[in-house]
Structures are given as structure tokens and as C-alpha cells.
């Protein structure tokens, strides 16, 4: 195809018009569309969180009834999990980056890719409809028998989750096929950037686990409409079985959230340390190791559910194995930074935040995986703090780091480095104020999911709430300077960070077909030692 004015055109301005965006099959545009959608839902979920924290400022009911409080935290959880964090890194950043990093023109099935975005939007409409019809108050885990008896609109929420599952499966399926079949000539498996390994491992989980979520929500819908009895104790069914079904998906799903984040961190740490990544294969295979192990540990969410003591023991034992590949990664990242030439740009600040916060989140996970300790900490704020440290301190920090890192590539403009660092500081401090406090609350026995609490917890709850405002303020700063940069930022060069992966060899923003010339693999993704020396000579 002959494109006009070769130098000026890029995927953002060619072809023009809303229709060309809505019917696009370009993975870059679909990635940007996903980014817009997840940002919207992150904002909604974040505002709900602020409402919850405000309500918890005082020990008594302030402005929410207990039922409304239940609906608030359920919506916060469900929106953040199903609408934001699961599609966030793979479908938004991954869609944009994956084909370019392996030197492909597009993903394997571009139309399926577009379909997955529409399915996502369609599913999210069901979820939003359920808010209007009577917001679900079961918690995002939808445990039976409460979810099969509550008068809120569980069915439409379930339909939404079912549809969103397809979107997730299609993204995963597309990525696996793309990585297998569309790598550029010379791009062998061990020359792929570690981001790709992270996305590949994620895609495997998406394909293997998500169908089980599908059948789980179908059974729950049937439970509510036909009274199937499989999960209902009054009907001779077993509610714990629902938890098995649910966590067979949802435990691997937390690795759908974290694995691509780990991929981003590998990129950031190597690039901003200007050093060859330490233990490439160890990081690559630990991603697959985490993906596999994630399927063997799901019942550690159910230690107090009444499952058999034998199963609890086995699952507790297996849970510790997740620590090994995660630990390998953290050690390799730290080893990469050691004696590197570290450049503390905003993305690197997020990467370091990730290392600190994810380590806290991971290590507290070991507490919770230990059977006896978990009996005490289960369903307290300790759990809430733990998963926010892994999901927000881990995945969201990685997402923000990746967003800043690829922002110039995606939009061709630099964000303000100064405000970027300020926002990062607010987010890091606010996050720790909010959630470290909750570890203390949890160990003192404050149960989760309560709208009211004993007076003695007020100082800690109050501190946590103030932290959440600091956190929210950080995000507000970020939103302002990022939007501002879209029009007024400095024009970005093709490779502002001096990184070595493929996406930095094309223009910023990239050409509609990614590369003007077929890319050639001349060096590994992190060969800073050899490439930098060559450039100097």
C-alpha cells in the first residue's frame, strides 16, 4: 500500500476519522482504545475506594447504610479486578507492545483482537447495568449460598463477567499464536524481550483458567434461575465446591495480573540500569514456573471454609513453592541493578517502588499461606493489605512504570519528568500510608468488609483514609500532566531511553505497519555491554 507523505504519517493520524478508529484492526489502536477503557474503569473503581475510605473515617455509619457499604466494596472489587486489572497490562500495553517487540506487523488475528475489545465493552455494559438494577453486595468473590439468595442483580453481573472472560481468552489466544508464529526472522525464543515472556506466560493462564470461570458463573446463574442445587447447602449441594470452582480461576488470575507487570519491570530495570539483565533464562522460566504453580495452590483461599484438613495441608505446602520463582525474579532484578549505571527517571522510580512493595506483598503472602497463621489472619485487614500490596503495589506500579516508559512511543510526546517524579512520590507515600496501616489493623483483629468498627481502631483507620487521599491526589497530578503532555509535551525521539528492544527502532509514534523496513535482529534485547561499547567506538 502506498502511504502519502511517508515521514509524517503514524498510526495515530492515518487513516483519519472516528470510524477508522472504531473499525481498526491495528493492534496499536486497539491497545490505545483498551487504555482509554481501563483508565475510565480505574477512575470509577478508585472513586469507589475513596468513598469506602471516607465512610471508614469514623467508627459509625457516616453516610452509607450497611447494605450500600457492601455494594460499594463489591463494585470496587469487581470493577478493579474484572474491568481494570485483568485487561490492563496485557490488553492495553501488551497489545501495543507485543507485536512491535517481536518485529511483527500485527497480532495473528487482528479482527479477533478488535472483537475482544468490543466484547470487553459489551461485558462492561452488563456490569454497569447491574449497578443500576441493584448493585451486587456479595463481595467480588460471589460466594454461595449468599450470592444465590441475595436480592441484588447477581445475574447481570455474572453475565458481564462471563462475557469479559471471552475477551480475556481471545487476547490470550492471540498472544500465544503471535509469539509462536509471527516472530521476526532471527528473533529466537531466547532473544525475545522478557516482557514477551511475561505476556506469554500470562496468556497461557488466560487460556487455561478463564473457561473455568465461565462455567462457574454459568452454574451460578443456573443456581439462581433454576435452583440447580449444586452449590446450595439447603438443596443438598456444597457451597465449598463453588469456592473451588471460583478459585481455580481466580487464583491463577492474580498471576494474570502480576506476570505481565513482572515483564515490564524486567524491561525497566535493564534499560535504566544500562546493564545486561542478570539471569535472562531464570527470569523467563520463572514466569512459566509461576504460571504452572499458580494452578496448584488455589485452595489456600479456603483454609477456613470447612474444606478437608488434608487438602488444606497440601495446598499450604504447595503455596510456598510460589515464593521460589517470585524470589528468583526479585533477586535477578536486584542483581541487574547492582553496579549498573542507574538513571532515576520516572519509570525507574516506579520499578523500584514495585520491588519494595511487591516484596512486602509477597512476603506477607507467605504468612497467609502458612495454615496456622492464616486461621488467625483470614478475612482481616491483613488480607486486604496483602493483596493491595501485590496487586496495586505490584501490578499498578508496573503498569504506571510501563505507561511512562512507553508513553513517548505511544503518543510521540514526552511527559513532564518533574511532575512525574512528584506524582510518583505522592503515590508511593500515599499507598504505604493507606495499606501498611491495614497490616497493623489486621493483626489486631479488624475484620474486613465491615462498615462500622470498634472505637479503638479509629486512629489507624483515620490514618489509612488520609493516606488514600494522598494516593488519590498523586493520581490526579498524573492525570493532569499526562493529558497535558498529549498536546504540549516535548516531541519524543525514536529512542528517548536508549533501550535496545525493537519498539525503539521504529519512529515515535510508530508507522501504521510498525516498521518502515523489516527489522533485523542484530543483538539481544539487553546487550548493553556490547552495544554501548560499539556505539562509543
Amino acid at each position, binding site marked *: 500500500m502506498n502511504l502519502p507523505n511517508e515521514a509524517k504519517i503514524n498510526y495515530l493520524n492515518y487513516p483519519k476519522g472516528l470510524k477508522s478508529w472504531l473499525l481498526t484492526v491495528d493492534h496499536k489502536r486497539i491497545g490505545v482504545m483498551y487504555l482509554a477503557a481501563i483508565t475510565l474503569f480505574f477512575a470509577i473503581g478508585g472513586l469507589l475506594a475513596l468513598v469506602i475510605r471516607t465512610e471508614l473515617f469514623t467508627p459509625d455509619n457516616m453516610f452509607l447504610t450497611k447494605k450500600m457499604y457492601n455494594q460499594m466494596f463489591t463494585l470496587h472489587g469487581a470493577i478493579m479486578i474484572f474491568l481494570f486489572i485483568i485487561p490492563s497490562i496485557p490488553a492495553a500495553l501488551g497489545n501495543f507492545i507485543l507485536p512491535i517487540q517481536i518485529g511483527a506487523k500485527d497480532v495473528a488475528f487482528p479482527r479477533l483482537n478488535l472483537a475482544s475489545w468490543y466484547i470487553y465493552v459489551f461485558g462492561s455494559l452488563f456490569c454497569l447495568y447491574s449497578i443500576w438494577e441493584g448493585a451486587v453486595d456479595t463481595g467480588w468473590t460471589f460466594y454461595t*449460598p*449468599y450470592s*444465590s*439468595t441475595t436480592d441484588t442483580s447477581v445475574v447481570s453481573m455474572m453475565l458481564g463477567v462471563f462475557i469479559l472472560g471471552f475477551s480475556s481468552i481471545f487476547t490470550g489466544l492471540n498472544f500465544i499464536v503471535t509469539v*509462536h508464529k509471527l516472530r521476526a526472522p532471527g528473533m529466537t525464543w531466547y532473544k525475545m524481550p522478557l516482557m514477551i515472556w511475561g505476556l506469554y506466560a500470562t496468556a497461557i493462564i488466560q487460556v*487455561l483458567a478463564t473457561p*473455568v470461570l465461565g462455567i462457574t458463573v454459568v452454574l451460578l446463574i443456573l443456581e439462581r434461575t433454576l*435452583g440447580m*442445587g449444586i452449590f*446450595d*447447602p*439447603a*438443596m*443438598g*449441594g*456444597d457451597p*465449598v*465446591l463453588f469456592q*473451588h470452582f471460583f478459585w*481455580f480461576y481466580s487464583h491463577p488470575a492474580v498471576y494474570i495480573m502480576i506476570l505481565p507487570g513482572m515483564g515490564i519491570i524486567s524491561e525497566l530495570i535493564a534499560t535504566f540500569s544500562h546493564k545486561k539483565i542478570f539471569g535472562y533464562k531464570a527470569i523467563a522460566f520463572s514466569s512459566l514456573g509461576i504460571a504452572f504453580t499458580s*494452578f*496448584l495452590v*488455589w*485452595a489456600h483461599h479456603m483454609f477456613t471454609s*470447612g*474444606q*478437608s*484438613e*488434608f*487438602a488444606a495441608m*497440601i*495446598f499450604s505446602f504447595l503455596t510456598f513453592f510460589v515464593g521460589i520463582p517470585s524470589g528468583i525474579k526479585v533477586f535477578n532484578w536486584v542483581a541487574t541493578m547492582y553496579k549498573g549505571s542507574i538513571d532515576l527517571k520516572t519509570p525507574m522510580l516506579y520499578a523500584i517502588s514495585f520491588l519494595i512493595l511487591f516484596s512486602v506483598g509477597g512476603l506477607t503472602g507467605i504468612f497467609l499461606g502458612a495454615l496456622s497463621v492464616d486461621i488467625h489472619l483470614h478475612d482481616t485487614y491483613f488480607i486486604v493489605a496483602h493483596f493491595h500490596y501485590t496487586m496495586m503495589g505490584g501490578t499498578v506500579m508496573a503498569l504506571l512504570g510501563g505507561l511512562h516508559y512507553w508513553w513517548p512511543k505511544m503518543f510521540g510526546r514526552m511527559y513532564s519528568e518533574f511532575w512525574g517524579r512528584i506524582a510518583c512520590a505522592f503515590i508511593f507515600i500515599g499507598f504505604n500510608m493507606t495499606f501498611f496501616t491495614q497490616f497493623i489493623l489486621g493483626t489486631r483483629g479488624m475484620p474486613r468488609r465491615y462498615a462500622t468498627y470498634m472505637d479503638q481502631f479509629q486512629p489507624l483507620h483515620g490514618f489509612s483514609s488520609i493516606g488514600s487521599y494522598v494516593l488519590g491526589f498523586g493520581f490526579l497530578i498524573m492525570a493532569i500532566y499526562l493529558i497535558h503532555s498529549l498536546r504540549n509535551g516535548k516531541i519524543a525521539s525514536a529512542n528517548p531511553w536508549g533501550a535496545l528492544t525493537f519498539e525503539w527502532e521504529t519512529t515515535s509514534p510508530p508507522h501504521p505497519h510498525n516498521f518502515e523496513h523489516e527489522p533485523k535482529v542484530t543483538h539481544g534485547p539487553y546487550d548493553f555491554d556490547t552495544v554501548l561499547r560499539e556505539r562509543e567506538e
Partner: protein
Amino acid sequence: MSDSKNNTIHILPLSLYLSIGSILLVLTAITVWVGVSFDFGPINLIVAMLIAATKATLVALYFMHLKYDSKVYLSLFIGGILFLAIFIVFTMLDTMRRQDIYEIKGTPLNNMAEMYQGLSTVDSISDSTDVSTDVSTIFTDTIQTDTTQQSSDIKID
């Protein structure tokens, strides 16, 4: 067009398809015959599953061409079945061993759904918010009393 090593077209002889088809039909006949005329107890299940597995293998290898195609597809297929096996086995580690310590945990709480007991009509089951709370109180009661009384203790006010 098909020079890639993964994509060599195998056109299998007609006779192969027909003979695999006939083997499948014969195996169906055998599984019905064994299932109807013999009672070996649990061995019946094993025999039926072995025959089904053989049939499935034949379909996958010949009809789905796994025998001739890239081994990536075969490993995907086996991988899927492996993860399903993990799901079944690990879940049954729980459900089959609940009675290890407390015998009452062996089967679901309500061994006889209320609709069989004339205590409640089929229509009012949807109103089961009360029912589930009742059952849970019965559960805690019966741990301390007699486990065999479990189902007859259920009352719905």
C-alpha cells in the same frame, strides 16, 4: 505453499477413515454390552473410561490428525487434559477427605433437600435465605450431638 515443515498435508486413505470409524462403533457396542450385562462394581467404571479414552485417542490421532501434525498441538491437547486432571484430583482431595476429623463434614450439609420432606413446597425454595441460616445452626448443633440425626433435625419455621 505447504513447504513449511509443520504443515505438510497428509491425505489419509479412505480406508483408514472407514476402519477407524468402524473400530469406534465396535467399541461403542462393547462398552454398552459390558455396561448392561456385567456388574463388576467399580471396575465397570474403569472399563468404561478405558474404552472411552481409547475412542477419544483414536478420534484425536486420526480424525484430528494429531498423529501427523506438529507436536505443539498434541502437547496443547495433553496439557489441557492435564490441567483438567489437576482440577478434578485436587478438588477431590478436599471433598473425599472432609470426614477425616469430623465425620459430619463428609457430605454436604443437607442430605435431603427440603423439597423431599413435605416441609416446604417446591415453589417456596427460592425463599431460601432463611433456609440457609437454619441449616447452619443445625450444623453447629449436630456436631455436638448425634451425627446420624442430621437430616431429621431440619426444621423450617
